């Protein structure tokens, strides 16, 4: 049975070691922070200048001045701090973020990511911080369904959608499993959801999958 969204987030969360500074993209990736126990100190950053995001605020204890990049209400944990946008993106662009997890439209076997515009003629796509994160984080993981709603593969030989970042994706977490992008080789299967076979994952991908050596 493929992973559900909660399990996908949990699977990615399991792979984040203590001490990493992690930026989570808006949408599905944001859920990852809920799956990391507080005792395992992972420092979540949000590009609007928040470092050290804590658990979701208790009802009635929301602080309206404290939001994340998705505009959701958050908390700050002890040791957290604030900075301005240029300093925040200095962290990102300067390679100080250990990991960024983004959503994706397509990932190519060379590590290219497309996740911001659906065509060259898209009239006004919203890029936000995705290109900065895609180019700047030390590691880039993508958390997405393995295929589109109408069944088109999202692991591809080359992206058809406009690119967000070139050759920087390291790993993809989908409902079918976990895939590593190996430079010069392509997608390597690290793990599969319970009951999902290699052949099934391959049949739902538009690029060759490799078994780990």
């Amino acid at each position, binding site marked *: 049975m493929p992973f559900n969204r909660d399990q996908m987030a949990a699977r990615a969360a399991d792979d984040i070691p203590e001490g990493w500074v992690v930026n989570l993209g808006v949408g599905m990736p944001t859920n990852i922070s809920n799956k990391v126990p507080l005792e395992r100190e992972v420092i979540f950053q949000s590009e*609007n*200048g*928040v470092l050290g995001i804590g658990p979701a605020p208790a009802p009635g204890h929301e602080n309206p001045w404290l*939001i994340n990049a998705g505009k959701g209400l958050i908390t700050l944990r002890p040791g957290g701090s604030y900075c301005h946008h*240029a300093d925040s993106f200095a962290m990102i662009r300067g390679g100080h973020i250990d990991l960024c997890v983004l959503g994706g439209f397509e990932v190519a076997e060379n590590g290219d990511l497309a996740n911001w515009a659906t065509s060259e003629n898209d009239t*006004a796509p919203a*890029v*936000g*911080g995705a*290109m900065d994160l895609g180019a700047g984080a030390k590691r880039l993981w993508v958390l997405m369904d393995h295929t589109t709603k109408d069944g088109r593969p999202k692991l591809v030989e080359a992206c058809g959608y406009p690119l967000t970042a070139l050759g920087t994706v390291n790993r993809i977490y989908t409902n079918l499993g976990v895939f590593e992008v190996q430079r010069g080789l392509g997608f390597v299967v690290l793990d599969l959801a319970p009951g999902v076979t290699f052949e099934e994952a391959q049949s739902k991908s538009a690029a060759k999958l490799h078994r780990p050596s």
Partner: protein
Amino acid sequence: MINKIVQSMADALAGVKDGSTVLIGGFGKVGQPDALIEALIEQGATDLTCVCNNAGTGRAGLARLMELGRVRKIICSFPRSEGSVVFEDLYKQGKLELEIVPQGTMAERMRAAGAGVPAFYTATSHGTLLARGKEEREFNGKMYVMEHALKGDVALVEAWEGDRWGNLAYRDSGRNFNPVMAMAAEMTIAQVAHLRDLGEIDPEKVHTPGIFVQRVVHFDRGTPWT
């Protein structure tokens, strides 16, 4: 005595010229200078270029300014979002120019303007549509894009506290774009929730020193609507 505090919103916006580039702070509703945007609508300047992380939502504030036909161009990272109906209409009708800039590049371009750096290189957007027409260059085996400083004639910012020298301190995630915009504009106008006496703001946590601020106006908008 230096006194940058003005008594009315009209005084705060006085003199903003047609054709100005206006930097508008805030991320979401937090740190967004709503009262100053309303005052800009009142003030009447038109043919504006607005730099703001998004392109307005609903029918108030920046969206209202656009709907009134006062905005020629929007420079932002996130034009289309839930409720950006005015933007979408005007843009489809070809009544609005749009320059999409990656969020970090946008912040850094303003920081560069404030810091006297006319241009810099960044890996962000290299090889993408947003790098089209931009100079590329290799440093240490990696490709970068040249980006230019983004200067404002006016910046509208919101802070938690401010004093008569123009010193500002922000609250929580209300800091966001405000300090870089304050640096980058010829005339920075700050809407502050609390006026403080000189020296009341801890010198170690003045986030925007008064050197970057020309006018301060008191407006406690209360809780940001979220």
